């Protein structure tokens, strides 16, 4: 599983950080940053939920 976050779409709500703090963070501009773009399988549920909660649809999960 690989994830990407589109800072062009990000609205800085912080939902992803609350959902999966080990994967997502916010920089000084409140834009999404990734601790890793390849979180382990153990984080799959939290990452999927973060993508679902994102009000701007800025998080994508790639299966490669």
């Amino acid at each position: 599983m690989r994830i990407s976050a589109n800072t062009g779409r990000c609205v800085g709500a912080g939902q992803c950080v609350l959902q999966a703090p080990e994967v997502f963070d916010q920089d000084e501009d409140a834009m999404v940053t990734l601790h890793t773009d390849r979180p382990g399988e153990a984080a799959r549920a939290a990452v999927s939920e973060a993508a679902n909660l994102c009000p701007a649809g800025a998080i994508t999960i790639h299966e490669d």
Partner: protein
Amino acid sequence: MTDVRSNVVDFPLRRRGAPFPPREYDGLREREGLVRAHLPSGQPVWLVSRHEDVRALLTDPRISANPANAGFPKVARTGGVPTQEEIPGWFVGLDPPEHDRFRKVLIPEFSVPRIRRWRPTIQRTVHECVDELLASDGAADLVADFALPVPSRIICTILGVPHADRDFFESRTQTLVDLAGTTEAERAEAVRQLLRHINRLIAIKRKWPADDLISRILGTGVVSEEEMSGVVMLLLIAGHETTANNIALGVVTLLSNPQWIGDDRIVDELVRFHSVADLVAMRTAVADIEIGGQLIRAGEGVMPLIAAANHDSCAFEHPRDFDPGRSARGHVGFGFGVHQCLGQNLVRAEMECVYRTLFERVPNLHLTRPVAELPFKYDGTLFGLHSLPVGW
């Protein structure tokens, strides 16, 4: 496509003495397509009540939050969205890309890490407010004496309102939210006084910048002084009554579900469960769009019903049960899309801190009137409590 024009409902559906969210919302969600409604002014509007449809609507670029566009709903006597001509900088009434200039410059002030740094200040303020509450003689109105002062003082601190001006801001904003005890003229006067005061504050921060939100935003040069006045007014009002209603209703709910007191998962479930901002997300279509199998034409107003979406059994099992053990995060209590509540992380921190501190320090807190007799808000845009008589 379904023609529901023959079956138009009168809106809002909130009724004095009836449960909130209204039972009728269950029926709305089950109808095919969307439901046509008439606002008290006679204005026609589409009601969007399914969770999935509300999310789709609030993220569609053909849907506008700008009250200057044709068809924009005016639901209640108060709480309408001013246009940029009326109050420049009232950015919740703007669409991208104009909206993004404001959001981008403000959102760093409310990010998860930034709010984490505010937590000690929030805790200190909540302690102060509990001290003041306990100073009265064993009984108080939890709305006026606690639920309103907490968010008011915290937002004043974040904005950089000097200590000496706090009481003024607090009393003026109380007048604004007090629909039961004030006239429209009194509220209009409170707005004028607030704007005058805010403009003076902005002039001072321009001259002597300090380590606060107003100074930082002015320093970016992205927002004009005139717009800044609208931004400050919006931040002051938006985080005030909504949070206070959540705090007060939350106390009522937790007193009857005490087993959940102390659990951190209560906050999002309370926001879902009460959905105080049911009527806040007014919208209008700027191009033809299909939502929930219904064609909405350009220029037709749309009401995404936050409380209906948050009580959709397709998204939340047994939605009328208060159950912090469920995963409530997918609620739309803070809205959805680019306008999703800017202050949501501040609200979460405030609510967590309030319940922990209040129930810890006032363990015998109780209502002094039965729940059925409490003065719930049926007349404003927001749902909540006009007052909450408590004792300890």
